[in-house]
């Protein structure tokens, strides 16, 4: 009796297990649904708006800033609903690489319709998705509002050196800047070059540090890259294709600079902040004299978020301050591609572009579009007005323009990160 019951139980269990295994296999073989994206014609914009009507767009976006979250909900969420009857579902991510992993898993599972409609993306995450062939192609330069984008600008059509090829559409721009506390330092005392920064650091030991370069900390990598421009006598020679010889020629000089600087740094360079926010915190608590930001509003948005004192101001060196663009991309498995296209187009709307740079709106990054391409006088006036309302906490536009340099080939990125770790951190 007892044994028969046991055999019966075993049989039921085996049956269940085989059922699960069987369903795994069969589902993998047959795609669960056909992609609706194939039927969309990017040149028939009215048709896209019609298809998007009533859809929900799932926008996966870094969610670490309360003010950016609110900007997205208030400015894009409202406009999408009112103008196009589209619901915005903002999905906050701790790290954009989580979206990349999600899309790779969906691909491995053989899904043709996923969960992600739009991603805020740039740099290595874009390169990974492009390489895995997971992005929707041929739309970025066909959006109606892409006429405002300066696609001829290499800073726009290259994303960390990787050709954008209409796989992304720009959202905003950023430029490397420093932050100081105007209650403690005069503008005339500020270092305006890497050489002057070293002098300042050694005259004020322990009051300077920077973000450790590495994957996910592009600000630190950029800080070192800009020093490379200065020690090698200029940024122009680094443009174009990757040049190993040039790197071999100048990298020893670069590590020499950083090793001389190290002894004068915060905690004598035994440790470095890993993120922008760690550096903001050190700066806000007076441990170091400078922080780093990429926002066109300078310290404005950070002041609004209570991350730095109200007397914080932004400044740049006289040269070699790298600027670039960030983008939105649509996965090829997007369940609502029409709504994603409408949102990507809405982002380039000159009125919303004017809103995004103002520190009080909480976003604070620069224009994704080129304001000179906006011919409507009312819209053009809005854009130039906004640019003039950035306030004291922003770097003057002329300083930004004078020091602006574009980023260089992606190969240098990992050389700098590995080289810094081997030659500076471990020495």
């Amino acid at each position, binding site marked *: 009796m007892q044994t028969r019951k046991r055999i019966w139980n075993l049989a039921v269990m085996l049956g269940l297990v085989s059922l*699960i295994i069987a*369903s*795994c296999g069969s*589902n*993998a073989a047959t795609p*669960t649904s056909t992609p609706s994206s194939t039927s969309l014609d990017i040149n028939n914009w009215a048709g896209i708006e019609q298809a998007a009507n009533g859809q929900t767009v*799932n926008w*996966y976006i*870094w*969610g*670490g*800033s*309360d003010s950016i979250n609110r900007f997205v909900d208030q400015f894009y969420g409202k406009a999408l609903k009112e103008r196009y009857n589209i619901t915005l579902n*903002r*999905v*906050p*991510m*701790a*790290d954009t690489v*989580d*979206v990349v*992993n*999600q899309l790779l*898993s*969906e691909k*491995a*599972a*053989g*899904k043709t319709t*996923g*969960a*992600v409609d739009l991603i805020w993306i740039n740099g290595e995450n874009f390169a990974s998705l492009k390489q895995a062939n997971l992005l929707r192609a041929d739309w970025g330069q066909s959006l109606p509002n892409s006429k405002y984008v300066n696609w001829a600008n290499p800073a726009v059509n290259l994303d960390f050196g990787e050709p954008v090829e209409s796989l992304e559409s720009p959202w905003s721009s950023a430029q490397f800047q420093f932050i100081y506390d105007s209650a403690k330092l005069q503008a005339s005392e500020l270092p305006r070059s890497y050489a002057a920064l070293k002098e300042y650091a050694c005259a004020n030991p322990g009051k300077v540090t920077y973000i450790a370069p590495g994957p996910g900390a592009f600000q630190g990598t950029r800080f070192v890259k800009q020093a490379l421009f200065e020690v090698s006598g200029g940024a122009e020679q680094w443009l174009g294709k990757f040049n190993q010889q040039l790197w071999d020629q100048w990298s020893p000089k670069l590590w020499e600079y950083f090793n001389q600087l190290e002894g004068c740094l915060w905690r004598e360079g035994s440790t470095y902040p890993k*993120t*922008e*926010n*760690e550096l*903001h*915190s050190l700066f*806000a*608590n*007076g*441990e170091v004299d400078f922080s780093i930001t990429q926002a066109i509003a300078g310290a404005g948005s950070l002041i609004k*978020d*209570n*991350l730095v*004192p*109200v007397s914080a101001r932004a400044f740049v060196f006289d040269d070699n301050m790298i600027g670039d663009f960030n983008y939105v991309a649509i996965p090829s498995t997007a369940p609502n591609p029409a709504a994603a296209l409408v949102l990507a187009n809405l982002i380039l709307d000159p009125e919303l572009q004017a809103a995004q740079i103002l520190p009080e709106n909480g976003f604070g990054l620069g224009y994704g579009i080129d304001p000179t391409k906006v011919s409507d006088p009312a819209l053009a006036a809005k854009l130039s007005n906004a640019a003039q309302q950035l306030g004291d906490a922003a770097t003057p536009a002329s300083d930004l323009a004078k020091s602006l340099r574009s980023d260089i080939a992606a190969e240098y990125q990992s050389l700098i990160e590995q080289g810094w770790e081997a030659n500076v951190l471990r020495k």
Partner: protein
Amino acid sequence: MSYRIIVWVLALILLVPIAVFLIYAFAQGWFFPALWPERWDSGLFLRQLADPQLRRAFGQSLIIATGVSILALVLGYPAARVLELQTFRGRGLIYGLFFLPTVVPSVATGIGLNIVFLRLGLAGTLFGVMLVHLIPVLPYVVLTLGSSFARYDRNYEQQAAVLGASPWFVFWRVSVPMLLPSLVVAGVLAFLISWSQYVLSLLIGGGKIITLPMLLFAAASGGNQSLIASLSLIFIAPLLILLGLVARYLGSPATGATPRP
């Protein structure tokens, strides 16, 4: 006397973090060397409470954690009972399999399971997230119930059966009341573990299911301490309420509070 000191020290260790969260959630612009924050402001905290996304995440976390607790008890009770009350070959091996998830990192299982769940159509569903939470939850439920079954006297059940009680009646009127304290503890543990899952929810939820820890981790990546503290307070509040509700089952006999069903 020394016992009291230990209690106070433990209470302090538990309460200090909550006090720190309270200060950080409401203090604005507080930088070294200022002794006192520039100003106190509840705006950020209240805005989080009113945020529709946070409310939805809170509700989903609550549904998932409650569902996981029930599922874990339904699955864990028979497992613990058989493992402790019966002797059979391979018992140690099965116990070992149950505890495997506590040593294997959830990222490793999560990524693999995500692909399986995507194929099964379970990824991105509440039920799928509940199922995947069972992986870290079940070992603790089986362990908690198992230790009770180890001291369990089956003679009571037999007694009731001899007196004519049906198996169902025996289960509800004899087994459950006798095991109630450890069922409550196991259920609470299941709730706590499910409530604080991040990686598995993120992977299996795929952004379609947003739980409270996901909002908390996103905020933590931004480093705004007031925001992190506000969300942390919202995150721990239900746990404190839950612990308060079941406190009488958690006391050990040493404190004089013998648990009574």
